[in-house]
């Protein structure tokens, strides 16, 4: 009897996955919000195990670290602005499925271009003109750095991911070389703050530090959003991304779109480089971009290549970074703690996409025959 039953039974696993069709938008949004909340629960449990603080303390410390003083708020928004600027910059290329991971190098070489204008031209021209020259040089440098792999991709179909990655290393080496040439004192490997007395080439926002940086990035984000969604060129980018053959069939010149889009991506990285040097650092080091060119790739993906959603994620990551830093400062923990915390939240956000696209069906109780 028992063996008979076994033979007849179709083996059904404990649960199986089924592709979900369109989940209502509000439901998907709720899942995403819940995933961030789950991320914070992970943070609280983890931090409780490590430092023994209760969740209220952890969250209030993170809020305090980001918003506690006017300086912290400005710093938070400035960090968000730069990260968002680079994230928006990589987005046009991503929409075209051109996997540009060279934002780090494109931004760095723009930093170098802006800093060299500051150093070499200095006070010889009025400050507004100098700032324009710096902006022009930075945008040009970023665009050149981005268009080289684009040309190779368009004409010889080289792998853009490897190419843009390698360009990062070239940018780092070129920057190191100039830092060596310009270092003061000799051989120290530091250029130091440029024009610290005359403040030539500094973006000065009066009593509100970084205000101009932030405004520029807001304008740039909205403009890019409009360009990508409501302009013919933005549409062409999407078509090339969907299918190059379709694009060709409807008469889009794919080569031109690839090159034009990467010029735009690079130029926007150039804007970021200009803001880093003129608006914050006023110097150049090989680490001026500090890995934000790579974080930006993640922000762009999390924001589904939509500049407006990306601004939320750029803010979230900056907040997590600053909040976690505050915890490490107060507890003396290793700063890797900040990375772990950020990792929890990103893991949950990415993981929740799975539940939006698939549903889990559990095995039903066996019907009695």
């Amino acid at each position: 009897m028992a063996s008979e039953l076994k033979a007849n039974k179709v083996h059904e696993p404990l649960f199986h996955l089924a592709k979900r069709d369109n989940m209502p938008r509000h439901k998907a949004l709720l899942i995403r919000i819940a995933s961030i909340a789950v991320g914070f629960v992970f943070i609280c449990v983890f931090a409780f195990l490590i430092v023994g603080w209760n969740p209220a303390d952890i969250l209030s410390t993170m809020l305090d670290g980001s918003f506690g003083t006017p300086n912290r708020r400005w710093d938070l928004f400035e960090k968000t602005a730069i990260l968002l600027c680079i994230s928006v910059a990589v987005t046009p290329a991503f929409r075209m499925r051109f996997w540009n991971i060279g934002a780090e190098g494109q931004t760095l070489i723009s930093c170098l271009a802006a800093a060299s204008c500051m150093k070499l031209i200095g006070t010889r021209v009025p400050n507004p003109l100098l700032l324009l020259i710096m902006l022009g040089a930075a945008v040009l440098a970023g665009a050149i750095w981005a268009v080289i792999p684009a040309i190779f991709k368009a004409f010889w179909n080289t792998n853009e991911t490897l190419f843009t990655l390698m360009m990062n290393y070239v940018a780092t080496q070129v920057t190191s070389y100039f830092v060596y040439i310009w270092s003061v004192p000799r051989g120290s490997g530091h250029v130091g703050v440029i024009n610290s007395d005359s403040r030539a080439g500094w973006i000065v926002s009066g009593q509100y530090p970084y205000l101009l940086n932030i405004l520029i990035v807001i304008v740039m984000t909205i403009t890019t959003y409009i360009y990508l969604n409501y302009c013919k060129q933005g549409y062409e980018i999407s078509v090339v991304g969907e299918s190059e053959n379709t694009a060709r069939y409807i008469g889009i010149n794919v080569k031109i779109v690839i090159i034009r889009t990467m010029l735009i991506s690079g130029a926007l990285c150039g804007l970021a480089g200009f803001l880093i040097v003129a608006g914050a650092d006023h110097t150049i080091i090989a680490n001026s971009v500090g890995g934000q060119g790579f974080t930006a790739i993640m922000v762009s993906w999390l924001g589904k290549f939509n500049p407006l959603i990306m601004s939320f994620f750029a803010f979230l990551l900056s907040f997590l970074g600053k909040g976690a830093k505050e915890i490490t400062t107060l507890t003396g923990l290793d700063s890797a703690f900040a990375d772990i915390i950020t990792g929890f939240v990103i893991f949950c956000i990415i993981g929740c996409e799975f539940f939006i696209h698939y549903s889990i069906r559990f095995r039903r109780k066996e019907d009695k025959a």
Partner: protein
Amino acid sequence: MKKFVVMLLSLAMVLALTACASGKKGDEGSAEYKDIKIGLICLHNEQSTYDLNFINAMKETCKTLGIPESRMIIVTNIPESNACYEAAKDLVDRGCNIIFADSFGHEDFLIQAAKEFPKVQFLHATGTKAHTEGLANYHNAFASIYEGRYAAGVAAGLKLNEMIESGKITPEKAVMGYVGAYTYAEVISGYTSFYLGAKSVCPSVTMKVQFTGSWYDETEEKEAAQKLIKAGCVLISQHADSMGAPTACETAGVPNVSYNGSTVSACPNTFIVSSRINWAPYYTFAINCVKDGKTIPADWSAGFAEGSVELSAVNDKAAAAGTQDKINAVIADLKAGKINVFSTDTFTVDGKKLDSYMADIDSDADYTPDTEVIKDGYFHESEFRSAPAFDLKIDGIELLNSKF
């Protein structure tokens, strides 16, 4: 929809369950230092031997003076960019009245903050600009670490002598290797004093130097050490802050003279001795100045005599016999002023003895020489400014690369 409400509720439960009262310490510390609040800005974290040295000294100083941890704030991984200025401002916001920064590249950003907050004292290790900036609240400090390097060099020389005596190498094969960060005076002064220390006991010694172009790059430093070993160096020392060079030496079985602190636990078979700057005397001095309302000098430097320079215990397993006794004698002589490390009798440049050298003490972009530093038969290191200025390329030391 229901599921979400349930989920959110359960989240709230988890939060509530983990919630429990966390007691904050109410330690007020010694009354004498009740108005002191200290901030320390570090380039890296405790993984870097350089930063660890600053952090340990700060903890020790505060413990000795009775300053509780709640009034000692250490921020780590602060890059040499605007982030340093932001970190300094944030420490001011937290109520710090003394702020230290440990990395050379922090200097300009600390000066920027110092101009903005004249009531807060800013102290910067290894910097060069305090004496030219003329700010009442910005100060540089260093230590006569060349004395420590010299004494450590003596230990290296004794090890070479042991190798020569045992027939392991011939006198002309006594080649040391040195992993340096940058072609900067701080590094040059360090390896030259180390070399002169070795030469004082082993006259045939020569040295090769490989630069990495970074203060902290474990892979580069390891590779540099391996390259030097391959090039025939029988003993390695370094001025870079990771464990790269010491661990490469341990793997290859080549003796190592370390820096910033003992690396004996990671390198039990090859570690000979290590020199380091002890920042506690300077911290204590500066904190007391602020407490008593006294002026802190623009430049401060001290050596063995004041306890600012220290040598670790000698590792008998790797060092030559009698090293500790010899080192003790050398340190006593340095304290008594009987040895001038950079005496012009002990080195030549392009085969000639020097009787004059103009150094770029007031750093500028053109490296204009501005100060005569050779007087009374020796190079006056760390006297005109606290940071090292010795950047001569002396005979017997070969630079394998120099574009850093």
